[in-house]
């Protein structure tokens, strides 16, 4: 974390994606460094979810490159590597937290199995070990251990998000993508979840890309902020700088539209 020359964990260069004539996102450049949380904000339809999908390996872009700094090989374009390689990356070094927990969890298997699945996917074949690790992670996300064998359908929204976090972090990923992780939760649950995410990211040195439309969440959670409009990045910089001294006309409008509490 010291010099200019440090290799970013994720580097996106000249990325564009089109849905036919429609612009999904256009000419995006971004970098995420180790231990950094990058926030992406913008109104609905601004292309932030498209961007997240592309950089998390779920949607090949029309053009541009997405390089991830692999542990051994160094920076590698995620869409140039073979599919097995990419999928392995996605279930080991990456995590994805979905807005809707049903997209990120197996609703028909217990909490413990949900958390332990990634371990099994990378070859863990010892039941006691898998169970102990699941327990440990449920503990880390502050879930009641008595619920390890319960099914996700009996859980509240906040608990489901915790479960998703545990399920993703168990393989100690280096980069986690989050799509509106706290929307749909009531404010008090939101605050605790934010605290949890921040604490875990700090402890584990994970990097994060978080998409949200909630500027308050971003101020507390992200180090850097990217503002998107109509598929383009209108401004990016330090979170507090973008929010306190916005440069682009759109950002100024956005920031001035926040209702004071």
């Amino acid at each position, binding site marked *: 974390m010291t010099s200019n020359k440090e290799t970013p964990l994720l580097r996106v260069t000249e990325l564009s994606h089109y849905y036919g004539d429609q612009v999904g996102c256009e000419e995006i450049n971004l970098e995420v460094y180790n231990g950094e949380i990058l926030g992406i904000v913008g109104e609905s339809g601004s292309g932030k979810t498209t961007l997240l999908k592309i950089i998390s390996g779920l949607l090949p872009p029309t053009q541009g490159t997405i390089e991830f700094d692999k542990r051994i090989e160094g920076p590698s374009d995620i869409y140039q590597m073979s599919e097995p390689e990419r999928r392995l990356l996605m279930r080991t070094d990456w995590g994805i937290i979905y807005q809707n927990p049903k997209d990120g969890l197996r609703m028909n298997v217990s909490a413990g199995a949900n958390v332990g699945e990634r371990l099994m996917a990378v070859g863990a074949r010892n039941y006691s070990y898998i169970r102990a690790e699941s327990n440990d992670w449920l503990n880390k996300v502050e879930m009641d251990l008595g619920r390890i064998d319960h099914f996700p359908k009996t859980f509240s929204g906040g608990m489901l998000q915790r479960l998703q976090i545990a399920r993703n972090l168990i393989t100690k990923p280096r980069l986690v993508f989050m799509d509106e992780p706290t929307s749909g939760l009531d404010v008090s649950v939101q605050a605790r979840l934010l605290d949890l995410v921040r604490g875990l990211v700090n402890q584990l040195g994970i990097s994060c890309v978080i998409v949200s439309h909630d500027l308050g969440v971003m101020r507390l959670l992200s*180090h850097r902020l990217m503002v998107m409009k109509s598929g383009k990045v209108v401004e990016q910089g*330090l979170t507090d700088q973008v929010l306190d001294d916005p440069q682009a006309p759109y950002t100024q409008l956005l920031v001035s539209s926040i209702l004071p509490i």
Partner: protein
Amino acid sequence: MKNKLREVLSVNNLKKSFILHNQNSFELPVFYNISFSLSKGECLVLSGSSGTGKSTLLRSIYGNYLTHLGEINIYHNQSWINLVGAPPHLILDVRKQTLGYVSQFLRVIPRISTLDLVAEPLLSRGETEVNSINRAKDILKKLAIPENLWNLPPATFSGGEQQRVNIAITFVRDFPILLLDEPTASLDTKNKQAVIDLIKNAKDKGTAIIGIFHDQSVRDSVGTTIFNIEEAKKAA
């Protein structure tokens, strides 16, 4: 003259203005041609009547406000770097290791206990939990935050208590350079003295400080140099 070897920060010809795009791109100038330097153990007091841009200058140095013209050179990790135009992750690194900032208001994630808030910066720098908690307790004690409040989030604290928590979060780390924006504004005499002691202590250890203190007594007891923005502007 100042000892060049002890210099840790130098600002050269710095300019800041705000462009208000939603008001016909009206340009609001704040200051220009600001130059000064800061050495170890020095406490530079920014003076000038309110609205002259003292806070803006501090925020510009911290990177909270974006500057385009001029230089903010800072001694970071055994080398000099210019913060104007520096990439965000570099500024983050400077903030993590070199440059601390105490704002006028406390802004933290709700529902986290005061002790955890103060210990967190140490934890994230890789210190052990025990060590971090102990140092957090230590500084809270120095700032006379009652022990029965430590496990509560600061949202319900009085203005003075919140301000001291804010100071604790920054002072718990030993930053080589500190920016203080009215750290004693809402404190009574006794607590003011605690903060003054803290600042003096830091100074003695070689910390370089730029501060805004409206309170004359605080200025007198910690300040080593006065920098008047209005005069600097006139001179330019």
